[in-house]
């Protein structure tokens, strides 16, 4: 068996990536010309909303790759080692996508448009009893601080984890050294998980997304957002694994690993639905106006079509299609489902961002889709570059052999 350890980015791959990025940029320019440059603040918000939705979504999705690494490190998982480098490469997008996202968030926060984040309008806040009450949390300084600190921490800790992984590429370890190595990984993974739980699992979605509907609140919100991006993150990992397999790389990854990735997509789609249903049902059941205001436009108003489409794509499809064992071991089905899931949760973020300020009509989604393609191109380019920079096989990792003989 020959193992192709060094990935060379195919020219066509980068061509596609650049084309997508150009489409994205053109869409952004077009969206700016038609909406962003207008006097009407709601039209402006439509432009910024698109950037917000896409940048936050794709940042959280690529960041989920590092969460996957750290969670499996803490759980002493072995099966995923054969494609560990793929996960690492995706997580290497965090600094760049994070910077873009951070800039967009700060521009929205400090720019003149207050339609997306009402609470940035200090004049308005003075007369709004609830918003002035919340000003201790919803203020520009804190928002900026949390945004910058979070993105920097994710990037740094991810960099540290990747560096640790590459540090043993040339040196096989004996059992004692392996134990020490695992311990070191565990410590850094634990630090990352703590940071993750204080950001993604709590404060960050409140600031970046929930504060669009600044009067509304839901304790579930952050966990729900996490579930959404984690399942999309696993889908993205799966896509890259399938891509590399198709190009005759990752010789040691086979249907067994794909099967487990499929299980993750299945399980976390159901988990997402569980949180989605719990949040919706409890608010629907109690029927308190302060809370139902969030679901009114989404479930019953003009956005209800997307609401139910999401239910089909994010729940029914994975449930019915990925249930079968054979489906999870079939490259075509898994690829299709991964694409569908990434799109479905992108829709979820559309629902989180737009109904808060585009109240009269649902924005034409083609624009946002164009912006999304730009981010897809960027992620393709960055991941491809990261993949080509280190060997594709973490061959000295203590658990790699478990992954080689893995069968589900």
């Amino acid at each position, binding site marked *: *068996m020959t*193992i192709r350890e060094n990935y060379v980015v195919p020219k066509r791959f980068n061509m596609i990536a650049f084309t997508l990025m150009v489409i994205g940029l053109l869409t952004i320019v077009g969206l700016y010309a038609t909406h962003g440059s207008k006097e009407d603040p709601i039209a402006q918000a439509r432009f910024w909303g698109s950037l917000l939705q896409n940048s936050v979504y794709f940042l959280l999705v690529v960041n989920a790759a590092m969460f996957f690494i750290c969670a499996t490190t*803490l759980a*002493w998982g*072995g*099966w995923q080692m054969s494609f560990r480098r793929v996960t690492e490469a995706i997580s290497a997008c965090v600094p760049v996508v994070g910077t873009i996202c951070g800039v967009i968030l700060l521009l929205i926060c400090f720019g003149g448009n207050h339609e997306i984040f009402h609470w940035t309008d200090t004049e308005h806040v003075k007369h709004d*009893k*609830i918003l002035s*009450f*919340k000003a201790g*949390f919803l203020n520009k300084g804190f928002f900026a601080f949390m945004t910058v600190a979070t993105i920097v921490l994710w990037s740094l800790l991810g960099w540290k984890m990747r560096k640790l992984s590459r540090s043993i590429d040339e040196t*096989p370890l*004996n*059992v004692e050294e*392996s*134990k020490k190595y*695992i311990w070191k990984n565990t410590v850094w993974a*634990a630090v990352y998980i703590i940071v993750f*739980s204080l950001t993604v*699992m*709590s404060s960050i979605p*409140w600031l970046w997304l929930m504060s669009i509907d600044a009067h509304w*609140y*839901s*304790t*579930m*919100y*952050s*966990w729900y957002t996490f579930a959404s991006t984690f399942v999309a993150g696993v889908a993205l990992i799966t896509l890259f694994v399938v891509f590399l397999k198709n190009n005759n790389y990752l*010789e*040691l990854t086979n249907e067994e690993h794909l099967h487990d990735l499929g*299980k993750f997509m299945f399980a976390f789609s*159901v988990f997402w639905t*569980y*949180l989605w249903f*719990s*949040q919706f049902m*409890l*608010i629907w*059941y*109690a029927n*308190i106006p*302060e809370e139902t205001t969030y679901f009114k436009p989404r479930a019953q108003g003009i956005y209800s079509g997307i609401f139910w489409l999401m239910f089909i794509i994010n729940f029914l499809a994975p449930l019915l299609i990925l249930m079968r064992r054979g489906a999870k071991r079939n490259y075509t089905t898994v690829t299709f489902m991964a694409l569908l899931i990434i799109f479905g949760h992108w829709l979820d973020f559309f629902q989180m961002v737009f109904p808060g300020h585009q109240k009269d009509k649902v924005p034409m989604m083609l624009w946002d889709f164009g912006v999304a393609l730009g981010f897809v191109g960027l992620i393709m380019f960055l991941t491809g570059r990261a993949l080509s920079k280190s060997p594709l*096989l973490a*061959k*000295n990792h*203590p*658990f*790699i*052999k*478990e992954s*080689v*003989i893995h*069968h*589900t």
Partner: protein
Amino acid sequence: MSLLRYESQVRPALVEGDKDYHQVTEDICRPVEARPSKLWWIGFIISVLFLAFGILSVTVEVIYGTGQWNLNKTIGWGWDITNFVWWVGIGHAGTLISAILLLFRQGWRTGVNRAAEAMTIFAVMCAGQFPIWHMGRVWNAFFVLPYPNTRGPLWVNFNSPLLWDVFAISTYFTVSLLFWYSGLLPDLATLRDRAKKKWRKAFYGVAAFGWTGSTKHWQRHEALSLVLAGLSTPLVLSVHTIVSFDFATSVVPGWHTTIFPPYFVAGAIFSGFAMVQTLLVVTRKVLGLEEYITIEHINVMNKVIVLTGSIVGIAYLTELFMAWYSAVDYENFAFFENRLNLNSPYGWSYWIMMGCNVLSPQIFWFKKMRTNLVVTFFMSILVNIGMWFERFVIIVTSVYRDYLPSAWSTYYTPTIWEVGFYMGTFGLFFTCYFLFSKFFPVIAIAEIKHILKRSGDNYKEKMDVVEKEDTIVFAEKQAHDH
């Protein structure tokens, strides 16, 4: 050579000592086949006494009515529902270990799953007592079953989460029982085949359902395990989710919050694992099973405890934050006055909860603590106290001073019969557990054998050559064999 059984030597062994299949059977069957020890009798008799006191307490309550408890119009749910939720929560670890960890292919579950599943079943039995006897006129308890009846239009209320509870818990109990029992079959057959006395042979013979160990039996057994695991996995989540709906669907400040379902489930697993630790730290010592329930098992379960404890911690802080962020006066009052304020009547209970559930498990970040049996035992008790207080805080501090100050309750303390009832469920729980540990193997013999040649001490040592092999050479050999 094809290596279907290999595990990195970095992982500690899950079966210690020089074991072969026969030795495993001998070790685990020994406590079942030997006469019960003095210690067993003492424990059993104490449990039966507790149970007897519980029966007396319930009898008094049935004869004189729920007035025998100190519940009042404001605090309609007190110790009874607190205890109910507490026991249901404990009943989560067993099925999590047997079902979810089976799906995740966690080898360490084999050492602890049998006892944990048994514990689950007993805990759910205890939990079920509380809503039943709380009904007061318990002879009407069958009213909860939805069927066309002669009571005119008097159907159950399908809109009520309390009814969903009936379905959720009875389903959970049934599936857990099936899972536990189907896992027991091969082991019961082993006991039957080893039995020397006639009555033992007859008893285990009937219990083993004619298991012969044929390939066909194993094939069906494996398929059934997987199906039951698939069915139980959503059940682990649904039970406590629906228990949380009992509170969260209401409009009571402190109860109505969307994070309740996953947070209740995390809390349930947290308390369930604590109870597993309490039982197993003692069981492994008393029955001499330290080589099967190893320090590594304790270590891993303590990791689950620090994980779920921290998830619960994030949920507490989220609730607290949202109580402020919501800018709703009532939410604010429920959290910051009724709970957080140490000088309010029940402030102390909130801080016991925080201390036991969030702060104290953090010591399990350190391996020294996770592998220390005394610390583990002490912590497991602390967590169970903390989780009891969590339910008490949620239930009592939310209702005792609600919207109308004129309805605020005086200080609520349980009567002797309320306490007695709770003690009685401990009696029931431990009576069942003692009987279980006497008549059934507390470790799944067949499943331990399944991992023995991969995770057993002596087998792992033999893997030295493989361990040192270059990964690519290793992979080539494997590819060649397939």
